C-alpha cells in the first residue's frame, strides 16, 4: 500500500519524538500507526519495549494482524494492551504492594480476578436476598441486567475517578422524574458498597478494583513507576477518544518518560461513551503534545457516499455543517423494502449473493443492525449459509448453554450426581442419549421412556426390557447404553469429582470411544472442550469463597447459573480466527469497534428506533456519571434529545465513513416482533433523501 506524504511523516518521525495524529475516520491514521510500529521494529527497537495501548481489544487487531504478516520483523513480544489488561498485569505482579493498602482481608492469599460472569455471579449472590427486603421494587428490569448495571456503576466510578460511594448521590441529583424512583439509586449504592466489601473480604478483584488498585495504589509508588518506565520506552496509543478519562490521566502523567510516543485521535469518535469513553477528556492530548499532524483526506468513501453522509448528518443534527450542493451522479444508497422481516432477509441474502456474483469479496460486505436478536441472527445466517455465502458474526448464534452437546453432557452429569437433586426430564435424557449414544430421536425417546425414572434420576438395565422392545431399540444401541450406564453406576459409587474433572473422564472413557456420539462429531468435541474450560474457570474463581464446600457441589451451582442465564454470555472461543473472508453480520457498534471499512453495508432495519435509543438503563447513566457532568444538574428531556441526536449523528457518520461504495437500506412495515417502527433514523433518512425538500 502506498502511503501519503502525511502518513509517511508519521511513520518516519524521529525515534525520540512525541507526536499526535488527528483526523476523521478513514483518513489512514491507524494504517500510519501500524507502519510506525513496523518501522520501530525495523529500526531495532526491542519488541518488548513497545507498548501499544488501545481502549478495547478489537481495536488492537490491526496491530496484531500486522505482526503476523511475513514482512514483520521477528523478535520479542509486543504488548498490545488495554488499560484493564495493564492494570491486571501490574496487580498480579505487585500484589504484595497492593494487598494491604487496598484493605484486603487476607494479605497472605493470592488475588482472584473476576471476569464479567464471575463478578455477576457474586453480585447475584449478594443481591438476591435483598429483593425480599423490598430492594428495587419500583424498577422493572431483568435480574441479570440489574446485576450488570450495579457492576457498571462501580466501573464508572473507577474509570471516571470518583469514590464509588458517590454513585447513588450523583444519579439521584440528576434525576428529574418521579421522586420515588430515587430510592432505587440508594438501593444500587447499597449493593455496590456490599459488593466492594465482599470483594475485599475474599480477595476478589473485579474490573473496578483492578483499575483502582493500579491507578491509585500502584502507579504512585516509585518502584512500580520505575518498573513501567524502564520496561516500556515507546508508546503507540490508538483511538484515544474511545478510552476512559483515567487512562488519559495515566498517559498524561507517564508521557514524558517515553522515548517516542504516537497518539492517534479521531475527533468524531466516541462510540464507547456507554462504556466510559470520554472524547472530551481525550482532547487534553491536543494541548499536551505540541507536535501534531493532521490527516484529513478520506481514503475510504466514494464522493457519493461522502455526500450521503453529509446530508444524513445534517438531517439528523440540523446544527451540523450544510451539505454540499446536490450531486448529479447516482445516489450511494438503495432501498430494500419488504412488508415483513423474513422477506427482507430473503432479499438481503439475494442482494448479497448478487454482489458476490459480481466479484465483490465477501469480506467487503457488512450486514449491520442496531441490535441483533438471537432469532434474527440465526435467520439471517441460515439464509446466507443456504446460499453458500461465507458468513461470520460477532459471536456464534448459540451460547454454550444452548449447545446440544453441552446440554447432553450436563444431563449426564446430573444423572451421575443424584445428590445434587437435579432431576432431568425424560426429554433431556432422550436428547442426551440421542447425542451421546449416536442414535435417532425415536429410539432415544423409546429408550428413555423405559429405562429412566425421573423421581430419583435412576437408570434401569437394558436386559430388563421386554425382548420385543429391545429389538425395536436395537441391540447395538443397547450395548452402548449398557456401557454408559455401567460407567455412571460406577462413578456414583465413588467419591464425586469436580465437574470439569468429571466431564473430562466421561468424555475420555466413554463418549469419545468408537460407537459413541463424540467419536466422529468434531463440533461436539469442540463444545465439550469449551464447556470443560468454562467449568474449570468458574471453579477457580469460586474457590476463595467456597473453601469448605464440597468441590463437586460447585458443579451444581454452575448448572444453576447456566440455566438462570448468569453464565449466559459464554461462547465458543474460536470464532475470530476463522472465516475472515466472509460477510460480516454484526451490531452496528461492534462493527465500528472493529474499525475495518467495507465496500458495501446493509443497514437493517432502518425503521427501528434502536438506532437512536441507547439510554434506558434504570440504574445507571453514562452521561451523568461522566467527568463532564456538572454535579447537581438535572438531566432533562432536552439533554436526552441532544444526546440522542449526537449519538445517532456520530453512529451514522461513523458507519458511512467506513463504507467505500454503497449502502443498502433495509426497511420493513413492521419490525421483528410486529411493532411498526418509525425511529429517528428513518425520519432523518426521509428528509435526507427527499429531493426538493431541504431540511429546515
Amino acid at each position, binding site marked *: 500500500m502506498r502511503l501519503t506524504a502525511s502518513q509517511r511523516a508519521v511513520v518516519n518521525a524521529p525515534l525520540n519524538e512525541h507526536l499526535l495524529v488527528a483526523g476523521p475516520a478513514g483518513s489512514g491514521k491507524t494504517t500510519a500507526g501500524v507502519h510506525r510500529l513496523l518501522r520501530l521494529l525495523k529500526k531495532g527497537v526491542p519488541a518488548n519495549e513497545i507498548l501499544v495501548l488501545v481502549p478495547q481489544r478489537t481495536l488492537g487487531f490491526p496491530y496484531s494482524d500486522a505482526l503476523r504478516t511475513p514482512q514483520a520483523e521477528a523478535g520479542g513480544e509486543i504488548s498490545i494492551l488495554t488499560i484493564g489488561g495493564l492494570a491486571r498485569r501490574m496487580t498480579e505482579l505487585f500484589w504484595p504492594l497492593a494487598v494491604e493498602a487496598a484493605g484486603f482481608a487476607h494479605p497472605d492469599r493470592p488475588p482472584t480476578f473476576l471476569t464479567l460472569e464471575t463478578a455477576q455471579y457474586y453480585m447475584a449472590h449478594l443481591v438476591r436476598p435483598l429483593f425480599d427486603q423490598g430492594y428495587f*421494587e*419500583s*424498577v*422493572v*428490569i*431483568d*435480574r441479570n441486567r440489574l446485576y450488570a448495571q450495579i457492576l457498571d456503576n462501580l466501573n464508572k466510578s473507577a474509570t471516571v475517578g470518583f469514590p464509588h460511594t458517590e454513585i447513588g448521590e450523583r444519579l439521584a441529583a440528576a434525576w*428529574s*422524574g*418521579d421522586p420515588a*424512583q430515587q430510592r*432505587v439509586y440508594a438501593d444500587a449504592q447499597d449493593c455496590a458498597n456490599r459488593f466492594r466489601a465482599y470483594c475485599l473480604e475474599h480477595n476478589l478483584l473485579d474490573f473496578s478494583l483492578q483499575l483502582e488498585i493500579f491507578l491509585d495504589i500502584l502507579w504512585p509508588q516509585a518502584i512500580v513507576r520505575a518498573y513501567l518506565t524502564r520496561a516500556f520506552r515507546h508508546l503507540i496509543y490508538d483511538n484515544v477518544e474511545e478510552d476512559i478519562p483515567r487512562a488519559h490521566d495515566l498517559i498524561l502523567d507517564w508521557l514524558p518518560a517515553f522515548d517516542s510516543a504516537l497518539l492517534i485521535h479521531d475527533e468524531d469518535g466516541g462510540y464507547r461513551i456507554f462504556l466510559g469513553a470520554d472524547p472530551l477528556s481525550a482532547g487534553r492530548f491536543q494541548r499536551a503534545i505540541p507536535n501534531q499532524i493532521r490527516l484529513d483526506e478520506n481514503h475510504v468513501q466514494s464522493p457519493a457516499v461522502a455526500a450521503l453522509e453529509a446530508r444524513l448528518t445534517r438531517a439528523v443534527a440540523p446544527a451540523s455543517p450544510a451539505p454540499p450542493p446536490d450531486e448529479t451522479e447516482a445516489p450511494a444508497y438503495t432501498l430494500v423494502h*419488504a*412488508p*415483513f422481516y*423474513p*422477506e427482507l432477509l430473503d432479499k438481503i441474502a439475494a442482494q448479497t449473493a448478487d454482489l458476490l456474483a459480481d466479484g465483490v469479496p465477501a469480506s467487503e460486505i457488512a450486514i449491520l443492525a442496531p*441490535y441483533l436478536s438471537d*432469532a434474527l441472527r*440465526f435467520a439471517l445466517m*441460515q439464509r446466507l449459509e443456504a446460499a453458500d455465502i461465507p458468513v461470520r458474526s460477532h459471536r456464534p448464534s*448459540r451460547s454454550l448453554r*444452548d449447545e*446440544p452437546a453441552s*446440554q447432553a453432557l450436563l444431563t449426564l452429569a446430573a444423572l451421575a450426581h443424584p445428590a445434587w437433586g437435579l432431576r432431568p*426430564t425424560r*426429554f*433431556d435424557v432422550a*436428547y442426551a442419549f*440421542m447425542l451421546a449414544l449416536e442414535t*435417532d*430421536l*425415536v*429410539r432415544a*425417546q*423409546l429408550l428413555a421412556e423405559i429405562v429412566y425414572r425421573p423421581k430419583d434420576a435412576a437408570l434401569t438395565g437394558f436386559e430388563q426390557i421386554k425382548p420385543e422392545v429391545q429389538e*425395536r431399540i*436395537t441391540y447395538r444401541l443397547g450395548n452402548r447404553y449398557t456401557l454408559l450406564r455401567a460407567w455412571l453406576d460406577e462413578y456414583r459409587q465413588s467419591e464425586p469429582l469436580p465437574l470439569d474433572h468429571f466431564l473430562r473422564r466421561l468424555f475420555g472413557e466413554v463418549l469419545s470411544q468408537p460407537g459413541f456420539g463424540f467419536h466422529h462429531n468434531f463440533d461436539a468435541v469442540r463444545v465439550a472442550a469449551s464447556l470443560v474450560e468454562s467449568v474449570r474457570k468458574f471453579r477457580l474463581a469460586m474457590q476463595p469463597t467456597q473453601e469448605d464446600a464440597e468441590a463437586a457441589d460447585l458443579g451444581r451451582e454452575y448448572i444453576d447459573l447456566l*440455566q*438462570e442465564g448468569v453464565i449466559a454470555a459464554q461462547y465458543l472461543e474460536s470464532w475470530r480466527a476463522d472465516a475472515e473472508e466472509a460477510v460480516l453480520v454484526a451490531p452496528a457498534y461492534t462493527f465500528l469497534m472493529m474499525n475495518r471499512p467495507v465496500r458495501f453495508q446493509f443497514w437493517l432495519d432502518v425503521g427501528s*428506533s434502536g438506532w437512536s*435509543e*441507547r439510554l*434506558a*438503563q*434504570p440504574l445507571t447513566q453514562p452521561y451523568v456519571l461522566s467527568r463532564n457532568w456538572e454535579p447537581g444538574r438535572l438531566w432533562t*428531556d*432536552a439533554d436526552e*434529545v441532544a444526546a440522542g441526536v449526537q449519538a445517532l449523528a456520530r453512529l451514522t457518520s461513523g458507519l458511512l465513513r467506513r463504507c467505500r461504495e454503497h449502502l443498502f437500506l433495509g426497511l420493513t*412495515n*413492521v419490525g*421483528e*416482533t*410486529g*411493532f411498526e417502527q418509525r425511529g429517528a433514523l428513518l425520519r432523518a433518512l*426521509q*428528509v435526507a433523501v*427527499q429531493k426538493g425538500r431541504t*431540511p*429546515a
Partner: protein
Amino acid sequence: MNEFTLRPSQEAILAYTGGKLGISAVPGAGKTFTLSALAAQLISSGAVAPDQEVLIVTLVNSAVDNFTARIGQMIEQAGLIPHLGYRVRTLHGLAHDIVREKPALAGLEERFQIIDEREADLIRREAARAWLQTHAEELLAEYRRLDLEDYQLGRVRRDHLPELVESLALAFIRSAKDRRLTPEALRALLDQAPGPLPLAEMGWAIYADYQRALTYRGAVDFDDLIRLAYHILETDAEFLARLQYRFPYILEDEAQDSSRVQEDILRLLAGHGNWVRVGDPNQAIFETFTTANPRLLRRFIESKADLRAELPVSGRSQPAVIDLANFLIDWVNREHPAPECRDALAPPYIQPTAPDDPQPNPPADPQGVKLIGRKFTPEAEVTAVVESLARWLPEHPDRTVAVLVPRNTRGVEVIEALKKAGIEYIEFLNSTSTTRAAAGVLGSVLAYLSDPSSASKLSRAYQAWRRAWRELASQKGLYTQTAELLRKCRRVEDYLSPQPGRDWLETVAESLPPADEGDALLQELEEFRALVRRWQGTTLLPIDQMILTLAQELFTEPADLALAHKLAIVLRQAANDHPGWRLPELTDELALIARNERRFIGFSSDDSGFDPDRYCGKVVVTTMHKAKGLEWDRVYLMSVNNYDFPSLQPNDTYISEKWFVRDRLNLEAEALAQLDALQASGEYEWYAEGQATVAARVDYVRERLRLLYVGITRARRELIITWNTGRQGEATPAIPLAALQEWQENRPPPA
C-alpha cells in the same frame, strides 16, 4: 381528492383546519373513510411539516391496517409519497411508542418485556389462588348466602369462588391501573380508610402480588403500558411538548370506547387543541370488563368541542332495517320502562343516502325484517334457525349471512347444529383463522416431535405439511392415502431410521400394485422421510432456532413466516421464563396461542380483519360483540330474551350477581365501588353496600340496549330476530323486542 366521491356531510368535515371537533356517526356512515380522507387532506395541504405526523388513534389492530392502507392510497393519488406524514396506532401501540422513547422515566429498562394477556391471566390466577388459600373462609363468611346447603358450599369453594375471585381481581387491577394507583399508593389509601373495605383489601393483596410477579419477570402488562405512558407525559413537560409538535393533529376513531386514561393521554398530546373525535355512542359495547365509558364522548361532543358535526347518512341497510333501528332509539328515549335507561341510545337517527349516492341503500323490502314472537326453548330456537338457513342458503349462493348470538357458548351450540345439518359455516368466535392456521401447522409438527414414536401424530404432521393438497383435486387422493398409511405405521422407527432388513417402506412397496400410483406414493413417503429426519435434527436446537428452521420448510406466505418469526421470539421468552419447560410444554404453549386470541400489538397484518364478503353461501357464526364493524346481507339475532337483554324489571336476573352471594350483590361492582370510595373526598361519597350493584344493573341494561342496536344495524337486506325461554324455562321476550314487534304490527304500510 377528486377521485373520491364524498357525501355532503363528509365534505363538511373535510373543511376542518383546526380546533376540537366532535363527530357523532351512525352505523355504516363511513367513519374510517372520512377520517382517512381528512388525514390525507391535512397532509397534502401542507399543514404537516416533514418532521411532523398526523396521529390517528383507533381501537383494534385490523383498523390500524385499514387506515394505513387507505391514507397511503389517498396520499399517493394526491401525488405525494405514501407512508409519510402520518402514524396510525391503537392506544396500546401509541402507549408503547411513548414508553419506548422514555423507558427510564417509567422505571423500565430499554428492552422491557410486555407480557400478553394469557401470561397475565396465569400470573393473576396464581396470585388469586394464593390469596384464597388463606382467605377463602373469611370471604365466604362475609359474602355468602346463608341458606346454602353443604353440598352447594362445597361446590362454591371448589369451583365458583376461585373463578369469582379471579374475575374480581382482573376488574380490580385494571381499574386501579386506569386510576394510576400503584399497589403502594393503594395501600396508603387503605391504611387511612375510615371503615373496613374487605373487597378492596382483597383486590390490593392480589394486585400487589401480581405486580411483584411482573417485576420479577422484568415485564409490564398492557394496562401498565398505558398507565406508564400517561405518567411519562405528565412528568416530562419537555418531552410532551416535543410530542405535541410531532403530532400537530390527532384524529381519534371509535371514540365512544375511549377510557378515562385514553382521553387523558390524548388530551395531553392535543395540547395544541387540534383533536378530532369520531364515534357512535350508540355502539359503545364491551365484550369483557373494560374501563371504557361512552359518556366521555357524549360529554366531549356536547360541552368541550369547539365544533360539532354529524355523519348521519348510511348506505348500509335497506329502509325497513333503518326504520327499525331508528324506532329503537325513539322507544328507548321515550318509553323504556326504566327512566334511568332512557339515554342509553341517542340521535342522530340513521338517514338513507341521497338518490345519486355511489353507495346507495339496498332496495326497500318491508318483508325483510322478521321479528319472531314464537316461544322457543333454547334447543328449538337453534333448530328453527338452522332449518331456516337450510331453506335459504341454496337459493342465495351469492349472499352473505350471519347468526349473531349474545355469548360464545350459545355460538358453539349453533355450530354443533350446523355441523349436524351438514351446513358450511365459518366460526368467528375466538381467534381469527389465520393466526390459528400458521400456529396450528407449527403446532402439529411440534406435537409430533414431542412424541416422536407416535404414528398418528406423524400423520398429522404430514397433513400439516401438505395442507395445500387438501384443496387440490389432483393431489387429494395421494394426500389422503399417504396420511392413512402413515397413521397405520406401527413402528415409526422402521420407517424413519430403518435397520437393515427392517425398512417399513419396503413392506409398503410389496403391498402396493406396481402401477404409477404406487410409485407416486413411495416417492411421497420417501420425500417425507427425508424431511422428518431434518425435523428431528432441529429438536436439539434452542426453541427459537427450531421454529425458524421449521418455518422455512413449512411456509411460503410472507405473513406466515413473519408470524413464525414472532412466535419464535415469544416461545424463546417463554422458555427463558420457565427454565423447566421442554418441547411438550412449549407445544402446549403454542397450542394456546393458536386457540386464544393474543393481542400482539401492531402485529396485525397476519389478521387483517375479518371480511364477511369472502364467505358468500356459508354461515358465519359470531357474537353480537364481535360483529361490530361488520355487515351481512342476512342476519339472525338469537336469544333476545329478558336474561340476555334485561330491562330493570323485578323478574330480571343478572349474570354478574352470583347465586351463592348474599343479597344478590354484584361483587365485581362492589369491589370497584370500594376502590372508588378510597379516592372519594366528601363524607357522603363513602361506600354504601348495594348501591354499586344497583348502578351496575342500570349500566348493564343500557349496554344491552346498545348491543341490540348494533345487532340490528348489521343487516343489509334481511333481519330475523328470535328469542327463547332460557335454561330454566322462565325467560320472556326482551321488552324492547316486544316493543319493536308491536310497532311493526301497527305501523302503516310504507307509502
